[in-house]
């Protein structure tokens, strides 16, 4: 929209003139422009007597029909900026109500304004302004009537305006001014319509002009519907006007410019004001339909300007649609902004092409005119001014000044003065051509394409393919602008896209551009490849001769030698090329020659530095989108080594097709899409097996008919049977079948990594390496694929009809198309490897893992190395493995039979003892040589540190001696590498669950405990110390409460810290972070050990190692009475059995102290059963045995080991495991206030027993203690029922009761609750206390009987 003047892109706003009182103009003008609704523009005139000419003169009624143009260029701007509709006279109230002199001055002002506005019919409004700061005062009505009469206005046009009233007063003025402006524009429209109606001779130009002006005047009024109607009417006249301008380029350009004016006004109105998107789109399509095609054959300059005009129409429409904010979902695809921008870019490209043609016409210099061309008086017209602007200005004279005041363009001044003249058609064409030379076409087009891409991406529609088109255009334009580096990535991406979708014509067009990029970059290698790929596209814009010439030239660059160089020079492209790049390809012959010269220089450098030249260019084909696969599609794969060909005659022996004795067959077929034959120097296949990479030479498959599927169809270049030594040829439009019998070096995975083709003749050439796994990665299929294959797994773009789509090798012969990896069966009898481990491992133990290796009865193995690993599945951490049979008196390996020499045995023993080493990646053992049938057993110890799954793996690598008849048919001996891998997954379980309880001292209750620093807590700190006491007291209360066992959870493990994974026991008690125990008193640690294992466990011992500051007190063990600090046992626990022990602990000092740990608990245990249930895994060669076969093999090997008496003793003695559990932090605090209950252990029924409560206050302040007696529990109690006792600092107090039980037997003491009143802490001091009450003797009963008549002895 920047191309248009502002009056065209925004709706017109009424214009009023503010006359007089300039101090009021800023405030009033700002309000009218920004706050008044609708907006009103204003111009300021300081004095009423200066208004002459401001409103212009009304023209006389036109009578003629001849017009110089259609639309005046400055008419719209003039009415928006300099021709007000209302004359607003601002006068002081004082001059209205003042003396006669002031009134006379007012009258003169009114007359001046009236005279200025009368001629054009402008409305007059008189605003009587009060002085600022004064309240509003009425103007006498007689004065108002006189003003109305004097000015000839209605009463409503005289306003009383008080600036002090602010916004309301301004709104009144704004409303009146807008109404008067609307009335003016309506009257003006009616006047124009009437004048036009009274014209005698109709003129289409005048009809169009009048309709356009009426539409603009309706816009001034805000009447959008009327404006739209008039604009449509104006546009309707354009088709008539257009039909009259055939063969007149200037007239056509004028009509086109007027149509653009009217179209932009109408579409802007529809989109921005009325939000009518369908109508706007319909108007746009009608507009383009009318003007897309020129009505005559244009000259180049007019054609270029027309493309620029079309591009501008698309761009403006796209901008209007995007800025309108309407919903674009209903728009059709071609009406989306992205598509419109793309169409604009296409038009700009066409313009650039025409401009290039014009530039070529004039030899690169823009043509010159004998003057200066400026816009004319009418829209779309041009005028030729004299070259000297001073002369033009002088000639213009005073008339120019008048025209300048009217807002006309500069040329109009000269035109008005007669100094300028219309251009002739030739001058006009020259002007257009010179204008094209000043435009940066490529930059404008690139900007448009970038905008189009952004709009397409953000459109939310499917635009993938359209984006590729836009990107191709962008690359083309960047290349045209000389920026080949920026164009290359775009074109490469587009080429890959079209390659994938196989659209040949767009691909060929893109490749032509990309090839030119490479040529500008002097990239000979890529240029040659692109030339060959272009030549391979049969449906491109090149004909067969051109493609053949291009391929020959490319081949000459690829190949080495003087004769190829000459061929490259002679194989240039023909002089003409179809398609859009005819001119660009004209000099391709010279280009090929230059490239050949570069190639010759490179060859010379190679010869100077490296001696004989080798491959000049090395191409890598690493993806299925490579251009080489367009030229050379290929198919490759192994033959199934297990596939057997049916015997040719009944009773004949079946033969394996995929492998002979000791070989595996690989085959590759390459199709040539290029129009010329491509000679090959060699073809090699690179492979990789367990022994490493190696290379084999491929030869033409002369027996292709036996294995190929279409050997008789004529599309087979190998039918000639050319041997490899004589060179291979990739014939155009035919398969070249290559194959090789690969000698088996070792069993296992054999992978074909790359196929190397060397193109050229003589001794040097270029190489193409096909990375097969990447090309066939998506086409890899299992070996047991069905016989019917819908599409052959061919990498690349295969042509040649339906016969070429068949597999180049017969699948019935076992060809696995696309299979680049194959499992080679061993050529020898592989050894047996058996791996055994307990079914359940217990965390913390060193589990016994056994390994057995037995060589086959027919083949011995040499240099065997065993590599064992144990990996924790969760953390992927290697677990430690160690030899468990390193005892010198009990060698692990026994030689079976008498086949081994004693010296070899000794050497093997030394080697075994010296070379086994545990590495970070596992345990590696050198087993040495094993004779045929020899068996060896190894015992390893696995450190089962972590719970969870553990993957055990044993990998045996060896070299086997084979005897075969490969190749020559004579018996020979060869070695073959092999390996066995046995894997086993075992599970490590948690063996123990440990419960820990800490109990306070019996019969003594600490109501309050001191802080860790008594001096700070007592007295001096007051409440902080009390708070701390409260917290500690809460912890202390928890000590005597038995916690319920918690389920094992991650939270409990996390509470134990990072060592939880290493701890083979789950600490059940969720203890607080810091325990508080009373200092100097006897406490109890109760330990409960519960077995979680699925097998029986023996607990050998349990010790408590007190920490620093903690001492163990002698106590009776729950499970044993061995000693105070150790519990010795040899109990066998089944699953869920509990082993319990109690330890008495106390602080070693009376003072309060915080200890890092209470100590640690040491538990010694072992498995109860010497031979746990074992799991077994076995492998024979590269194949793993199933579970049943592995179990049978393990049983056999175990029996064999038992017969040898080898390592069975190691298995028979379970290892002793030790468990060390750290105990939590603890704080020993001195109790501040204690309550101890003293009572006899036994009493007699009916006899009083003394219960004494001893209170002790160790603190520095007096404590008030409340004592309450509850249920007496079968006793008569004498003593205080409820009382309060003051216990002085550092002193004691006591209370006593006499309890008389009246029942015999065990009896609970009466409930006595002691509470510290100050802190609200209470404790039931008799909770759990009881005494035994003896029965009263008969004598005591008689003595106690008050009535002699009662019989004694009766209870």
């Amino acid at each position, binding site marked *: 929209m920047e191309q248009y003047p502002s009056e065209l892109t925004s709706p017109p706003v009424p214009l009023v003139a503010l006359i007089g009182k300039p101090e009021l103009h800023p405030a009033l003008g700002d309000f009218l422009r920004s706050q008044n609704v609708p907006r009103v523009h204003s111009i300021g005139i300081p004095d009423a007597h200066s208004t002459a000419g401001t409103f212009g003169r009304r023209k006389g009624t036109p009578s003629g029909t001849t017009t110089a143009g259609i639309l005046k260029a400055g008419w719209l701007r003039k009415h928006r900026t300099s021709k007000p509709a209302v004359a607003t006279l601002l006068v002081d109230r004082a001059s209205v109500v003042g003396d006669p002199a002031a009134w006379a001055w007012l009258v003169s002002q009114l007359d001046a304004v009236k005279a200025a506005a009368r001629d054009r019919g402008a409305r007059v409004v008189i605003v009587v302004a009060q002085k600022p700061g004064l309240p509003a005062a009425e103007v006498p009505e007689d004065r108002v009537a006189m003003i109305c009469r004097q000015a000839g206005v209605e009463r409503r046009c005289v306003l009383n305006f008080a600036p002090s009233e602010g916004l309301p007063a301004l709104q009144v003025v704004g409303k009146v001014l807008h109404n008067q402006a609307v009335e003016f524009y309506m009257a003006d429209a009616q006047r124009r319509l009437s004048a036009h109606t009274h014209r005698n001779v109709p003129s289409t130009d005048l009809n169009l002009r009048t309709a356009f002006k009426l539409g603009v005047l309706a816009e001034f009024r805000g009447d959008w519907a009327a404006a739209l109607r008039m604009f449509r009417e104006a546009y309707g006249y354009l088709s008539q006007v257009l039909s009259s301008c055939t063969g007149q380029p200037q007239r056509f350009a004028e009509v086109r410019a007027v149509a653009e004016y009217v179209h932009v006004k109408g579409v802007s109105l529809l989109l921005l004001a009325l939000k009518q998107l369908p109508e706007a789109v319909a108007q746009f399509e009608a507009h383009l339909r009318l003007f*897309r095609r020129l009505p005559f054959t244009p000259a180049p300059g007019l054609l270029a300007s027309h493309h620029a005009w079309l591009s501008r129409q698309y761009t403006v429409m796209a901008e209007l649609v995007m800025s309108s904010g309407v919903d674009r979902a209903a728009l059709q*695809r071609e009406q989306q902004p992205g598509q419109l921008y793309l169409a604009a870019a296409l038009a700009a490209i066409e313009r650039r092409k025409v401009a290039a043609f014009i530039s070529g016409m004039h030899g690169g210099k823009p043509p010159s005119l004998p003057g200066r061309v400026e816009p004319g008086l009418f829209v779309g017209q041009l005028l030729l001014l004299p070259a000297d602007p001073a002369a033009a200005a002088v000639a213009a004279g005073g008339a120019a000044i008048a025209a300048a005041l009217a807002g006309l363009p500069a040329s109009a001044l000269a035109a008005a003065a007669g100094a300028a003249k219309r251009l002739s058609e030739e001058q006009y064409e020259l002007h257009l051509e010179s204008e094209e030379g000043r435009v940066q076409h490529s930059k404008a087009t690139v900007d448009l394409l970038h905008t189009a891409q952004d709009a397409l991406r953000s459109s939310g*529609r*499917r635009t993938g*393919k359209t984006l590729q088109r836009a990107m191709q255009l962008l690359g083309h334009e960047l290349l045209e602008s000389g920026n080949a580096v920026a164009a290359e990535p775009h074109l490469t991406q587009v080429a890959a896209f079209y390659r994938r*979708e196989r659209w040949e*014509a*767009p691909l060929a067009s893109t490749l032509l551009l990309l090839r030119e990029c490479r040529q500008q970059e002097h990239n000979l290698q890529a240029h040659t490849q692109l030339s060959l790929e272009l030549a391979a596209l049969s449906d491109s*814009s090149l004909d067969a001769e051109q493609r053949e010439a291009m391929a020959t030239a490319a081949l000459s660059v690829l190949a080495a030698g003087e004769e190829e160089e000459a061929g490259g020079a002679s194989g240039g492209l023909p002089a003409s090329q179809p398609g859009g790049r005819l001119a660009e390809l004209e000099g391709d012959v010279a280009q090929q020659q230059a490239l050949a010269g570069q190639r010759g220089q490179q060859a010379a450098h190679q010869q100077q530095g490296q001696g004989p030249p080798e491959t000049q260019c090395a191409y890598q084909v690493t993806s299925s989108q490579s251009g080489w696969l367009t030229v050379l599609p290929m198919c490759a794969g192994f033959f199934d080594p297990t596939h057997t060909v049916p015997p040719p005659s009944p009773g004949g022996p079946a033969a394996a097709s995929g492998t002979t004795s000791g070989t595996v067959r690989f085959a590759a077929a390459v199709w040539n899409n290029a129009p010329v034959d491509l000679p090959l120097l060699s073809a090699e296949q690179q492979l990789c097996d367990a022994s490493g990479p190696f290379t084999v030479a491929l030869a033409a498959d002369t027996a292709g008919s036996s294995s190929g599927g279409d050997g008789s169809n004529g599309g087979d270049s190998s039918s000639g049977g050319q041997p490899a030594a004589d060179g291979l040829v990739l014939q155009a439009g035919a398969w070249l079948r290559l194959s090789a019998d690969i000698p088996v070096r070792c069993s296992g995975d054999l992978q074909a990594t790359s196929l190397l083709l060397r193109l050229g003749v003589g001794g040097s050439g270029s190489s193409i390496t096909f990375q097969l796994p990447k090309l066939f990665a998506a086409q890899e299929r299992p070996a047991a694929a069905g016989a019917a294959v819908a599409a052959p797994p061919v990498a690349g773009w295969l*042509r040649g009809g339906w016969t070429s789509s068949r597999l180049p090798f017969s699948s019935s012969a076992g060809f696995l198309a696309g299979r680049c990896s194959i499992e080679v069966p061993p050529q020898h009898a592989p050894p047996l490897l058996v791996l055994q481990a307990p079914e359940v491992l217990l965390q913390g133990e060193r589990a016994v893992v056994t390994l057995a290796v037995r060589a086959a009865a027919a083949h011995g193995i040499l240099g065997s190395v065993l590599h064992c690993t144990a990996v924790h599945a969760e953390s992927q951490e290697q677990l430690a493995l160690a030899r468990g049979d390193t005892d010198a008196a009990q060698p692990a390996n026994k030689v079976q039979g008498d086949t081994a020499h004693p010296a070899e045995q000794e050497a093997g023993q030394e080697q075994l003892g010296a070379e086994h080493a545990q590495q970070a990646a596992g345990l590696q053992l050198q087993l040495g040589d094993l004779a045929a049938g020899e068996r060896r057993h190894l015992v390893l110890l696995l450190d089962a540190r972590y719970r969870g799954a553990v993957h055990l793996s044993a990998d045996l690598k060896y070299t086997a001696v084979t005897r075969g008849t490969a190749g020559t048919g004579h018996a020979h001996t060869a070695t073959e590498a092999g390996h066995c891998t046995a894997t086993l997954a075992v599970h490590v379980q948690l063996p123990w669950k440990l419960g820990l309880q800490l109990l306070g001292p019996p019969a003594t209750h600490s109501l309050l405990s001191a802080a860790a620093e008594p001096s700070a807590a007592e007295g001096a700190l007051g409440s902080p110390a009390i708070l701390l006491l409260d917290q500690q007291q809460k912890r202390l209360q928890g000590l005597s409460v038995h916690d319920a066992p918690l389920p094992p959870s991650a939270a409990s493990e996390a509470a134990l810290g990072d060592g939880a994974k290493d701890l083979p026991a789950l600490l059940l008690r969720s203890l607080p972070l810091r325990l508080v125990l009373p200092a100097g008193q006897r406490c109890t640690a109760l330990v409960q050990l519960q077995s979680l294992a699925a097998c029986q466990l023996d607990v050998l011992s349990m010790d408590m190692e007190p920490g620093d500051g903690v001492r163990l007190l002698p106590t009776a063990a729950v499970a044993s009475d061995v000693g105070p600090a150790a519990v010795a046992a040899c109990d066998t626990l089944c699953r869920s059995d509990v082993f319990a022990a109690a330890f008495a602990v106390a602080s070693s000092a009376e003072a309060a102290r915080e200890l890092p740990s209470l100590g640690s608990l040491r538990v010694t245990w072992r498995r109860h059963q010497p031979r746990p249930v074992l799991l077994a895994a076995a492998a024979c060669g590269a194949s793993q045995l199933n579970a049943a076969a592995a179990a049978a093999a393990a049983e056999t090997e175990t029996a064999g080991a038992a017969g040898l008496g080898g390592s069975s003793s190691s298995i028979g003695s379970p290892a002793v495991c030790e468990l060390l559990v750290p105990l939590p932090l603890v704080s020993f605090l001195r109790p501040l206030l204690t309550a101890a209950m003293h009572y006899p252990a036994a009493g007699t029924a009916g006899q009083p027993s003394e219960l004494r409560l001893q209170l002790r206050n160790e603190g520095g302040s007096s404590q008030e203690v409340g004592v309450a007696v509850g249920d007496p529990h079968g006793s008569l109690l004498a003593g205080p029922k409820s009382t309060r006792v003051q216990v002085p600092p550092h002193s004691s107090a006591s209370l006593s009761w006499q309890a008389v039980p009246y029942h015999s037997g065990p009896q609970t003491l009466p409930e006595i609750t002691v509470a510290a009143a100050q802190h609200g802490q209470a404790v039931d001091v008799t909770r759990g206390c009881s005494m035994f009450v003896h029965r009263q003797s008969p004598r005591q009963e008689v003595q106690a009987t008050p009535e002699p008549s009662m019989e004694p002895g009766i209870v």
Partner: protein
Amino acid sequence: MVIVGANDVPLYEADLSAKSSTDAGGREERPQYLYHFVLHAALDAVEEAEWHSNAMHLGVVDRFNNLQVSAFTTAAHVKFLLLHDGRSDDLVKSFFRDVYEMYLRVMLNPFHTSTSKITAPLFHQKVRQLARNYFR
């Protein structure tokens, strides 16, 4: 006209305009490569139109200047695209239906796969004959 396979790979291309012909050397007439860009980009519109219609004939799906792209899709998502200058939609629809019949006969060939290019001269002649019948 272009027949495009399910993977947007062109299976058949023909220039059915009046001035195209087979030259003396037997070389097939070649559509102008610019129209290939238009037809290829129109596949975006075809994919959108397939989701908005149950009919096989999708009508005009795209426009390029004064040219239009009409589309017809089969149940196997094989698309027939015709670039024309505003022919009657009924004619285009009938043309597509007849071409579809011939396409089905080609697909009945046991030696033809759904991804193979249609190179049969008879098919090409019949398509040209249909174009002559309907559009001239």
